[in-house]
């Protein structure tokens, strides 16, 4: 079987394990435990048991009808978006793409086991600082470390109800974009840098998800806790 050597993870024992585990269709308990043990030291917010559950969940999700070859690498965009939609109630395409992009750290088009766990760590339980970074990455559509007008406009496009009487339906959108930029662009260069974003969010926490809901709400988190962590434990 051809295995691709992912740059970053080529060397560490964990990644070897990961590769092995993802290649195997059935994982034995011991393997999972070992893996979880190692990961729990590297990932914040989850303990060993929880990581075990996450691994199992991951495999279950992968096990859904998908091409065997692809399944080996991780969750692809479509599968991941389905998860976001079903588990966390997300509906905005652009945002979901952004979340995928942010989870997929090595940009290979798949969410590996590790990316899954690391991503969820912030997604479900991140500190404010971690979440700020996460959200910024989601909104920075082109990855240039700035959120610009051109990126904000499509993100907010569907947030406003078009008034039928308005002569220019985009006028409201433009206004909203300007108002937001005014609020968040601290260094007044017409775009929001990471520093701008962080400062603005720390001043007003509500702005964390300013351009779209990219984090789960309390209900989803609780449901996930229940379904994944507790249920898995019972098995």
């Amino acid at each position: 079987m051809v295995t691709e050597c992912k740059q970053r993870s080529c060397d560490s024992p964990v990644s070897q394990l990961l590769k092995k585990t993802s290649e195997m269709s059935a994982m034995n308990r011991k393997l999972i435990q070992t893996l979880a043990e190692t990961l729990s030291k590297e990932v914040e917010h989850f303990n060993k048991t929880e990581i075990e559950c996450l691994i199992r969940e991951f495999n279950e999700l992968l096990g859904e009808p998908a091409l065997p070859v692809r399944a080996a690498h991780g969750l692809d965009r479509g599968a991941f978006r389905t998860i976001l939609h079903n588990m966390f109630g997300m509906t905005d395409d652009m945002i979901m793409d952004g979340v995928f992009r942010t989870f997929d750290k090595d940009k290979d088009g798949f969410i590996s086991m590790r990316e899954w766990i690391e991503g969820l760590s912030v997604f479900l339980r991140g500190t404010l600082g971690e979440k700020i970074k996460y959200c910024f990455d989601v909104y920075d559509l082109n990855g240039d470390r700035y959120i610009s007008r051109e990126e904000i406009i499509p993100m907010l496009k569907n947030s406003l109800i078009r008034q039928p009487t308005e002569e220019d339906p985009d006028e409201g959108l433009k206004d909203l974009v300007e108002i937001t930029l005014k609020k968040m662009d601290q260094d007044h260069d017409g775009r929001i840098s990471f520093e701008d974003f962080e400062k603005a969010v720390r001043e007003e926490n509500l702005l964390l998800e300013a351009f779209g809901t990219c984090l789960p709400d309390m209900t989803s988190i609780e449901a996930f806790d229940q379904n994944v962590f507790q249920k898995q434990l019972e098995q």
Partner: protein
Amino acid sequence: MAEEVACGFHGNRWLQTVGKSFKTVEKLEPHASDAMGVSLTKAVQWTSASSGTGKLEFTPMNESLLKEILRFVEQFNSQHPQEAKHVFEEPLQWSTTLVASDFKTDYDISDSDVQSHEKDSEGHPLLQLSPPNVYARSFSQLSKLIHLADDKKLEEVRACLEGNRDPMVKILGPSLTSVLQKGGAHTEVKEEDQGEDSKVKLFLLLQNMDNQLLNKCLQEISEQVSLDPAAVKNEVELLKQLCSEGEKRVLKSVRYTSDYEFSNGCRAPPWRQVHGEICYLVIEPCDTETLYITCSTAGAFLNGGIKQEQEESGYERTSDTYKDLVTLLTSRSPHFAENINKQDFAVQELPSTQKIQHVESVDAEEQGQPQRSYEQQEKNVHEKARQQHAPNKADGEKKYEPCPRWKNLGLMPPCGKAEEKKPSKSSGEETSGEIQKKKLGPAAKSKMKAEFSVSSLPGRLSSQKIKTSAGAVPVDAFSESSSESEEEEEQPERRAESNTDLPSEYWEIQKVVKFLKGGDQTATVLALCAMMDFNLMQETCQLAIRDLGGLEVLINLLDTDEVKCKIGSLKILRKISHNVQIRRVIVDMGGLQSIVKILDSSVKDLKALAAENIANVARFHRARRTVRQYGGIKKLVKLLEGDCRGGSLWGSGIVELQQEYQEQGGHP
């Protein structure tokens, strides 16, 4: 935005707006010099007398105006099909880039000429093209042509305007046009024109667009520059009073160069407003040559000799900038300087939101006994004066007194409900601020002129009503003081005494409220965050939020499931609920009930915010009753017991609620 000083739009009016807003470059025509200084009503004659072929300058303001006009025309056919069919009095004619091959169905094409199928009652086509000239006689044809022009749309609009300097005359005919140009909403349509229903409707549509263009223009200006015309106006009024015929006069004459006042109180054309210029004056002192003065946000200075409105040149500054008109005149006219000090004066404090202007007035009739007369005025004014300052002639300190000469002009309700006269507003001296709003379209019951005013008395002066010796406007009765006691009893809605001037954020508030109403959670949260930046503790702002429907939305948000929206809403409510009237509305609308429900939330922030709001709102009995009714007391007590933040956060309101709770014997 660098604006070159171009030639003014000499007396040519395509709607008041365009005429005043567009900058054009004039080709010098023989009649051009006649045209300078021609007033609005004479515009029509001028147009027919000359064939000015000026061009529109490429400025951002012009561009955005052009786009607005384009939009208007584009959608005309679909939005107003009836009026679109109306045939113009005369065709609009211009040099087009379109050719015969651009035209498709609905047109007869022969060689390079095109004629429309659409014809008037005499069988003449409503559109004719003989390249490069095109003649169009209805909006439906204009609309169609624009669509055909595709990406050259804007050029076509530009060419049309350049080719038809007074299109309104061509569209509506001279009589309606002159009515339109006189401006204002109370335009009377002559009988002969009334019979033509669609013509009248067209007229109204054009008037509406005119107003919108004007508003947009002024809005753009207000975003770049903050102009303060009120102070200038006051000073000019004062100076005018110093002019008279007799020996004692201090000045010979004072006049504006322009009769027309924009809705933001300025008289300078928009492309000069962006430079901070407010108006231009011509002042004749007694002892020296005539002074041509520009009043701007930086102060007053002499200009290059602007005599009439829409001058093409003369805007340059030719002197130092003085703090205000009086200072300028004092330095330029020794006679003025000498005599101004001899006047008995009272200084009027202007609204605190605006520049404080020293204003001096001469009480000609009561000269020699100003003190007594002022006292008399005061007695007439109101029973409970909030502040009594005896006028002091001797020193130059600022004192606050009503000046009998100040005209007391009518009120314009600032919000969209133009019909209602809000009881909470009071009349006062004339001011303007950035008060032109989109809602005040043609339906607004005000003329866009100097009479447009809103009370501007600051809280301290509020009880001193201004009464003119001519008895211009009846004094409004203020109610008693509104100091908020903890135990305030429910009082009938009374007039606000404090500053009811429109906040400069009025525009912004309106926009933000719109987003609150018509957006999803993301947009709503953004709007709420934007709203937090407003001056939420200022009464004018608070009332504006209420008047624009914002308060209602904020309360509605409390009933949704969206945590972030609730948090945002409560954050704003806790600020604006410091206002007694807002509190009442919250209770009346059932807001208190919603807030009490939020106490059940598991989100800590929400609970805390809800409690804080209840503390603010529950300062009168009916509110407390409501809280009790909905089990609020129990919940609050639970919170207090469980949460160590309780005491510091929630203040005396909670203590009172506790008292009530105990009074009720523990059974709320």
